[in-house]
């Protein structure tokens, strides 16, 4: 399968702090890739550079920002506007050829058609996050970047959102998401990228990470990640 997104030697520096160092990977169409790692590992920085929110200090991303759908951790929506108005605004800003059709499609995909006229500020956290993701998809991008998409959702809302994301992946969208919830990565991701101190320590299927950490294939990925970081991080950091 050919890569729809290539990230090469990405680096980001904030003053003396090296937030990302020499990060490179590829994502294929329809692939769900999870970015995991401890706090301050550089997950959000990586996703925001891929989405074009901030420029890298070094390295490159193969896609322009307009080709990457973006859904930040906190929904980026206008709370005074309705669901449909938010979608319509970004459809126009994204210069979608048929904005009304795109809005109808996204309302249908997110299951929010009945609430299209409701102000976003009155929606539940789960529905707001669905609109947030829908805004990222309004221009039908080949790649979708999601920063902690389920962070503020209850289990039911999380499950519905994952079903929605899975349907996008099945339709061919490459999904790159960050998460603190490693079990979600184990359940939904085809591949896992492990970041620590801005460095990419692992790139492979969750099963491989389990094996690398000395766990059983059906073991707990969270425990495996902790063990993996304990094994790898010191030598990598010192390197």
């Amino acid at each position, binding site marked *: 399968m050919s890569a729809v997104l290539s990230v090469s030697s990405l680096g980001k520096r904030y003053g003396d702090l090296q937030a990302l160092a020499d990060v490179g990977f590829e994502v294929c169409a329809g692939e769900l890739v999870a970015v995991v790692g401890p706090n301050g590992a550089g997950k959000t920085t990586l996703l925001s550079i891929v989405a*074009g929110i*901030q420029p890298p200090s070094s390295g490159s991303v193969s896609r322009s*920002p*307009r080709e990457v759908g973006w859904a930040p951790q906190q929904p*980026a929506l206008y709370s*005074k506007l309705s669901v449909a108005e938010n979608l319509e605004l970004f459809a126009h*800003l994204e210069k979608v050829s048929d904005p009304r059709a795109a809005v109808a499609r996204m309302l249908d995909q997110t299951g929010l058609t009945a609430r299209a006229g409701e102000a976003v500020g009155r929606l539940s956290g789960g529905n707001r996050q669905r609109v947030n993701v829908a805004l990222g998809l309004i221009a039908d991008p080949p790649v979708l970047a999601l920063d902690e998409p389920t962070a503020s959702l209850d289990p039911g809302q999380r499950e519905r959102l994952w079903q929605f994301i899975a349907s996008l992946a099945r339709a061919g969208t490459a999904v790159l998401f960050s998460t603190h919830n490693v079990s979600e990565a184990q359940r939904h991701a085809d591949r896992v990228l492990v970041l620590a101190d801005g460095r990419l320590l692992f790139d492979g299927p969750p099963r491989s990470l389990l094996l690398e950490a000395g766990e059983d294939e059906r073991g707990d990925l969270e425990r495996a990640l902790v063990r993996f970081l304990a094994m790898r991080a010191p030598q990598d950091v010192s390197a």
Partner: protein
Amino acid sequence: MIWLLRKDLLILRRSRLLVALLVFYPIAIALLIGFAISRSPSRPRVAIVDETPAGETIQVGGQRVEVSQYARQLFSQVQSVGVSSRAQAVEEVKSADVLAAVVIPADIAARISSGTAQGQLEVIYNGDALEQSLVQSQIGSALAQANLGFSEQLQRAAAKAIDGLLRGGNLGSLGAPSDLIGLEQIPAVLQRVLAHVPAGSDRAALERVASFADFAAQNLSVSKKVLSTVGQPIRVHSTLLHGRRTPLNTFAVVVAVSVSLMFVCVLLAAGGVALEREERALGRLIRGLVSREALLVEKGMLAAGCSFVLALAMLAGVGAFVSLDWSRAGLWVVALAFGALSFGALGVAIGALAREVRAASLLAFLMSLPLAFLALVPSGSVSHGFYEVIGAVSFLFPFKAALQALDAAVNGAAPSIGGSLAHLAGLCVIFGALARFGLRRAD
């Protein structure tokens, strides 16, 4: 950018309380400032106790001036409250029904008529330091005005008595016989008598008397002018060095409109930019959908447009009540447009740096209000050094330049409008650059 503008107008339309506050609050503040500037201080409410007997007069030469005329002069300078006794006056002052009380003592006429003592009034007041200062100043001014008016009446009486001495006639009022010769007539009469008097010691003596009478008549007529000079030794003549005189009420209109323009524009622009961050939409927008510069221009233009319309409507509305030169309306538009754009740039800079709507609004408010007051501080009212500091601060922000531009546009006041417009344009560029710097990061 059109869709962004459409979105902002939609949000504004749905934020009715905010819009109402943005419109009515600055108008209320502006009207209060304008009212305070244009309205002359009200006459102080003063209790007056006239203890002089009814019909008491002061005698000046053969003329009599009623003491009650002095009381009338005093009444015209204050909002008088008639009280019958000093004790009642003290009560009125204590209860704060009046700012002060003035007691005209019974012996005032006798003291003035004596020619050896001044008349004396008693002023009673209380209150805190500020109030005392205000009362002393207002009462002092009122008494000075009353004294001046009364002094003119005494001068007129004295002048009439001098005229009687010079021209003669019926001077019964001076205790003299009727049809008395005037001092001016004596030299001519003596000349006629001298024509029949042979040379000798009597003639020489008569010639000396004639010379004295001539000299005395001339100098006594000069004494009337001296009396007027003593009564009001210094008159004030005002000269305006440059520009033309701005009537206080039209200047108040300019201040009111400038304040409204500033508040609406700065608050709207600051809030608009900060809202993009607060809604976390900024990151989504600047990733290729809208450039940072376009976003700032849109917010600034929206705020400038709204405040321009409001300010122009205010100016036109007030113009129905205050005489404005409508032939200068083109200049009003130019001055308001430059002012609005400059305030818009200041607003977006505040919004970009503050990051939250509440912080941006608070910062905009905290900056705008003192700037407005600083710009209105007159040059002579504070020390030179402090005024220089105020001038430097005012120079760095658009309010004073906008005020001067609008004053020049509406009233033709100095300095000329061109310099103020150039100043506003410069500030617009500087604050625009500051806003762009504040927006360099999307988070």
